[in-house]
């Protein structure tokens, strides 16, 4: 009998585990073959030029994202890393609907959201919130922080009365470590770390399930970075949040991320679970990026030197966008765009050299 119950409980636990892994595998946000280009030629009249006696219209574009596909799983923290200009913030903004994609689609739980109008987006805005990089710019200086926090709560809960709204705001202020009695103060009366807490509180105030954080700690000091990172991790645990975390700092990713997507010049080079990526980076760019982290070591840095500069996203290089700086580039890299292939370790990498087994 005793044996029976034991067996029974084991299967129950097993069932729970499989169920857990199933929920962990549920995809929340899908980005499918996303392209985004920005025109840099000015307005219609600026685009008109005389060429060979004819009036022609010419347009130049910055190709910020070029065919990125990503899936964010429920409950994970997907980190997007890359250097400035690689399109990571554009991905964040396109997912949030702040920018319309030039091609491709963004879906939330299977529903396409990139082609919705503002009114149709409202229910999704409640589920998806964003935290911005600079807490000095993202808080309205003319509103007290109580007003700042009450606005989204009241907007998304139209049938709540003032007391309910205020209680909610107090609760969320308390949860991020801001004394609710400071509600009457203006944002300039707070330090950078406190302001970032307030903008996190603003995102949490409508009980979202998905948060896009665009470099949320890079404007902060080291000791404050740790505080804010801890706060984000606590919030994830308590509220079962899913993060899309944009950063340039790989050591933060190692600590925080479930999976990592490495971007270069608007394309995805490598996508892998954090541990796999840090144990064995495959893409030459990921390797270079990782070797460049200043570690607390007293011996000489041994980093992989990249030659040349990042090309402009106006005239993209042919083939692999990284070939100009890649030590392993050959003719195929210069002509053919590499596709993501799945590696033995369970990651994905877009590199001809890896595919051919050259590295």
């Amino acid at each position: 009998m005793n044996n029976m119950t034991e067996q029974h409980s084991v299967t129950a636990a097993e069932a729970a585990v499989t169920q857990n892994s199933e929920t962990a595998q549920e995809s929340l946000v899908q980005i499918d073959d996303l392209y985004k280009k920005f025109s840099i030629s000015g307005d219609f009249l600026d685009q008109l030029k005389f060429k060979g006696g004819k009036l022609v219209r010419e347009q130049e574009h910055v190709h910020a994202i070029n065919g990125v596909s990503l899936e964010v799983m429920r409950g994970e923290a997907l980190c997007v890393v890359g250097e400035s200009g690689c399109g990571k913030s554009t991905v964040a903004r396109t997912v949030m609907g702040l920018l319309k994609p030039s091609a491709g689609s963004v879906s939330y739980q299977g529903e396409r959201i990139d082609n919705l109008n503002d009114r149709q987006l409202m229910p999704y805005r409640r589920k998806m919130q964003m935290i911005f990089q600079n807490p000095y710019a993202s808080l309205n200086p003319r509103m007290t922080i109580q007003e700042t926090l009450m606005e989204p709560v009241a907007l998304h809960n139209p049938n709540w009365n003032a007391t309910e709204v205020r209680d909610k705001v107090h609760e969320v202020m308390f949860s991020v470590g801001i004394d609710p009695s400071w509600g009457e103060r203006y944002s300039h009366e707070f330090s950078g770390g406190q302001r970032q807490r307030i903008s996190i509180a603003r995102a949490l105030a409508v009980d979202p399930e998905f948060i896009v954080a665009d470099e949320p700690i890079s404007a902060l000091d080291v000791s404050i970075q740790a505080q804010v990172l801890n706060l984000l991790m606590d919030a994830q645990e308590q509220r079962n949040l899913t993060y899309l975390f944009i950063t340039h700092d790989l050591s933060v990713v190692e600590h925080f991320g479930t999976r990592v997507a490495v971007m270069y010049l608007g394309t995805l080079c490598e996508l892998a679970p954090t541990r796999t990526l840090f144990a064995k980076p495959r893409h030459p760019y990921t390797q270079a990026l990782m070797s460049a982290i200043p570690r607390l070591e007293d011996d000489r840095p041994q980093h992989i030197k990249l030659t040349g500069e990042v090309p402009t996203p106006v005239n993209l290089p042919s083939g692999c966008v990284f070939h100009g700086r890649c030590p392993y580039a050959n003719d195929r890299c210069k002509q053919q765009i590499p596709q993501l292939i799945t590696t033995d370790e369970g990651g994905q990498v877009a590199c001809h050299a890896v595919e051919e087994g050259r590295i």
Partner: protein
Amino acid sequence: MALLEVKDLEVGFGLRSGEVKALRNISFSLERGERLGVVGESGAGKSVLGFAILNLLSRPGYISNGEISFEGKNLADLSAAELRSVRGNRISMIFQDPMMTLNPVLTIGEQMVECLLAHHKISKQDARKIALQKLQQVYIPSPETRLDQYPHELSGGMRQRIVIAIGLLMDPDIIIADEPTTALDVTIQAEIMELMLELCERNNVALILITHDLGVVSQVTQKTIVMYAGRIIEQGPTKEIINDAQHPYTQGLMNALPQMGIPGQRLNQIRGSMPPLQRIPTGCAFNPRCNYVMESCKHNLPEFTQSGGCQVACHMVAEMKREEQAARLQSQEVGQE
């Protein structure tokens, strides 16, 4: 004699609400060819220190006390003309944002030649040759064309190299670099730091590297100063500070780095934030945030205690050292008996 010796430096800012001290009791020395890191969070006074050494403070900031002796001269006492012969010549400075440092309406060559002609009596052609040579030293590709380009035509990493080349023009004895790589990407940062290290070693130039990044300091410098709220709280050989920090603030700063944490676990944060200069607590400025705070920390300013090769301003470390010494004396007495 040390190349640069700073003694009891104090910098005040005369504000309408009263005077605040941005720096107090700053004393350190720098040998020829030595690389010193100055670490701290924003507001610790590390940039003010860099400016104060060259007396570049603008009003209401001024050096209210102390001595900055460079080759026997006190820089704090020199006239503007005498200072000009030191600035950019014997001691040069590299700032954070290369776009702000370079003049946007002059070509790279014009800026470099201008700087050379200000300090040397040479012809323009010779100055151009020296400029070219310095650009080669910082590995600028096709330096001849770069000389005739404007700063906006170059990338961020390239601009910072040019700034370094300008800093090296006069073969200075000391380079003060104030967050030279903060505005740059990681891969470019690594490249620039390696370049600076190489140039300093090859030309035997002393470097004062002001940064908030302990990782960079650990890779480049030999000595480190850790600052908090306008004071030095710990200084000593970089290796010792990185491997065995004594001051609770230095320890906290290092443990707060994501690379020191266990992935997925909470980071070891320091609670609170640095106080503004007008409201520095009495006693040890770090006491409201310190995990080891004692009664004496709240009232008395900690003196420097020697610990290994480091000097630490902390009551707890002082007490530990006293106990250690007492124990040693006791064991000696026991041994004698």
